[in-house]
């Protein structure tokens, strides 16, 4: 079964080698890797999708795309929380990692045309939302009011600070909050759902994209729904254990849902009942 490198008919379970083109530190424990194919064709991910990233000899983890490169490059923002993510964050420029994907459903950026869009991010949840924000701003005229609500632990934990400023200039109403601030922090201190109070949008024609820790999503969607946004126009991105990405390993079940196959992006009304059952 030995095949010539580059001539493999690789199935979806075989990671394709990619080279780290750039590596940058976002926060104390979070890094962004920019990858390019080591050979062969690249892949074409969409906002909201994820890849399975392999550190050869160590393991594999699901990581969302945190930017959609225009030149075939893949961008992932990774927090060091385990053996594989630690190795990924440590992979230097020129190092090799494996990529399988893209997998999963997407933020319905195109379907939201004509609507007001509220993007709400908590912590690392900003990473899978960045491609959605970029896509919205690329067609700024196609949407009504565009709002970003973003909460993090401290000002130093906010991802992509330069882009947040740039986005403000491109017509995105950016509201930031942290759990605790210092004198130099002039934005808000509070929970991300509280930011909704500051924001004007036409609830009936609003589409919301929400991503963050599960509790943050529950509370934020609750606040959105209270403001009149409908649950089926509110999308969340779920995180569950994933081993295959293709619906075959059984790990990512949430009741009737296979998160990798049916998600990770779901309209809230499809998942809220299942999320409400503890330890499901």
């Amino acid at each position, binding site marked *: *079964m030995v095949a010539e490198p580059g001539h493999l008919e690789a199935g979806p379970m075989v*990671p394709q080698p990619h080279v780290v083109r750039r590596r940058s530190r976002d926060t104390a424990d979070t890094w962004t890797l920019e990858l390019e194919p080591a050979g062969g064709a690249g892949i074409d991910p969409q906002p909201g999708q994820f890849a399975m990233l392999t550190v050869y*000899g160590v393991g594999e983890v699901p990581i969302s795309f945190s930017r959609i490169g225009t030149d075939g490059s893949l961008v992932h923002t990774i927090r060091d929380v385990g053996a594989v993510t630690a190795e990924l964050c440590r992979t230097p420029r020129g190092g090799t990692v494996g990529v399988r994907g893209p997998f999963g459903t997407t933020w319905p950026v195109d379907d939201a045309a004509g609507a007001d869009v509220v993007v709400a991010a908590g912590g690392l949840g900003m990473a899978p939302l960045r491609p959605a924000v970029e896509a919205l701003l690329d067609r700024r005229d196609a949407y009504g009011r565009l709002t970003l609500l973003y909460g993090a632990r401290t000002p130093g934990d906010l991802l992509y600070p330069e882009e947040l400023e740039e986005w403000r200039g491109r017509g995105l109403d950016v509201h930031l909050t942290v759990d605790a601030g210092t004198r130099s922090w002039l934005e808000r201190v509070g929970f991300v759902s509280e930011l909704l109070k500051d924001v004007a949008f036409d609830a009936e024609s609003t589409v919301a994209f929400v991503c963050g820790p599960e509790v943050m999503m529950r509370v934020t969607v609750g606040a959105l729904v209270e403001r009149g946004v409908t649950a089926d126009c509110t999308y969340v991105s779920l995180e569950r254990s994933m081993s295959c990405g293709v619906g075959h390993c059984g790990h990512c079940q949430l009741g009737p849902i296979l998160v990798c196959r049916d998600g990770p992006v779901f309209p809230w009304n499809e998942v809220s009942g299942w999320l409400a059952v503890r330890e499901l």
Partner: protein
Amino acid sequence: MQMTRDFVITLDGLGELVAGLRNRGYQVVGPSLRDGAIVYDELESADELPAGWTEIHDPGAYRVERRGDEARFGFTVGPHSWKQFLLPSRVRLWRARKNGEVTELEEEPPPEKPFAFFGVRSCDLSAVAIQDRVLTGGRYVDRDYAARREGIFVVVVDCAEPGRLCFCTSMGTGPAAESGYDLALTELLDGEHRFLVRVGSERGAEVMRDVPHEAASGADNETAEALVETARSSMGRELDTEGLKEDVLANLEHPRWDEVADRCLSCGNCTLVCPTCFCVGVEDTADLTGEVVERERVWNSCFSLDHSYVHGGAVRQSGRSRYRQWLTHKLVTWHDQFGTSGCVGCGRCIAWCPVGIDITEEAAAIRNGKEGVSDEGS
């Protein structure tokens, strides 16, 4: 589908059938007695079938016993199922150089010869069809499974004597197979020891050409039908599937889950013996030099904490939630995920549970407590 008239073959014919399949290049796999259990293994001849043996199943108990006759298929199902061959417990997915250069692509090479599964019970044939849907019926096809599955020759054996834990009639999977086989046998022990053969495919008909046989008489057919009918009405267990989905989902917080969790050891035996359980994980390893790395796919169980691990902790921390996941998946959410039940009624999980937890009993208890609980729980 009846492609030709049914045949009758003798014990010699059975031997010829195994030989004929081997001559055609199949690796014939079927039941044989080993270590006090009836297991599936390669058969070199029909002489290796567990002649004269039967099985006694009870919750948490399994043993083999001598029969008063020389029946070749006088038992039902042991600890093995055909997933051992189609979805092996450990398979190498790929091997690569440390720098990611893939030098060898997976394929724990698929078996050199296609399988002939000899003596497949109807419930297990349904289990294969269920795994087909899971692993090949969606957007992505599991290449290793598909390679192993490709071209298998299936010889079914209808059940005449269900075990004490069998409930295939409840699940609509038995006791006789109606399609999906190449040949189907019914063992006839009245008078001369013989087998009624139904042909289910062209391949089946072709194989039968070299096996000495006679045309089945009307009486043979009637005997066979009567045996299956008797089997149908003598199931050891029953599981009422009518409205089961709604009832289980309305009772996700039923106290019965706590009770069963007190008994459940979270050992995962039920998932190992289940012919449809498909959960797998991967293990990455490097050789001593660190230069050559590989990934293996291994069976996982939803009874392990690791199964639902997301950074920080497992979603399903309690034994209660893990048992609930397993039962709910089998009987309810499998339908949503794959358009079929995940349970075929073979009863293996009951026999091989060290504490004898009975899925039919648990399902009945869970659904019976719907009042009061669903109000609070939802």
